[in-house]
């Protein structure tokens, strides 16, 4: 994740706490979605940015996940995400985001 963006997320978490905070991702492939999910849960795996070694443990979801899709406006969702539901490897993306969300990366 871009170092400035890591700094922003880190600052938000520090200033106002992580209660009620939730990260929503929009990456189109499993590897990049996994990398972002890992960064906001375990910390920056590339050890390059402000979140290196900072396990924020934020709840992280991908926009393709049913759990958050159900709470969103269906027409708007279809308009913005419908195409990606068809084009992306949804199962793999969800698998990796869920893996980090559920602490699977803490082994």
């Amino acid at each position: 994740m871009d170092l400035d963006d890591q700094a922003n997320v880190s600052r938000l978490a520090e200033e106002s706490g992580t209660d009620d905070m939730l990260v929503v991702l929009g990456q189109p492939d499993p590897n990049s979605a996994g990398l972002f999910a890992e960064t906001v849960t375990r910390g920056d795996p590339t050890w390059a940015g402000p979140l290196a070694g900072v396990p924020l443990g934020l709840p992280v979801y991908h926009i393709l996940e049913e759990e958050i899709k159900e709470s969103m406006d269906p027409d708007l969702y279809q308009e913005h995400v419908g195409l990606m539901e068809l084009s992306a490897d949804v199962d793999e993306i969800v698998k990796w985001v869920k893996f980090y969300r559920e602490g699977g990366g803490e082994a």
Partner: protein
Amino acid sequence: MDLKGKRIVAIGEREGINGPSLKLLAESAGATVVFSVTQCFV
């Protein structure tokens, strides 16, 4: 899951779903977007 009242960090990508789209969707669920960004890797 109910997103109402949640503070959302939206991390989008140009080739996927971008920040502004994620923001619109999160707001449609009653959440507040506290940070939204679009990544471009190229």
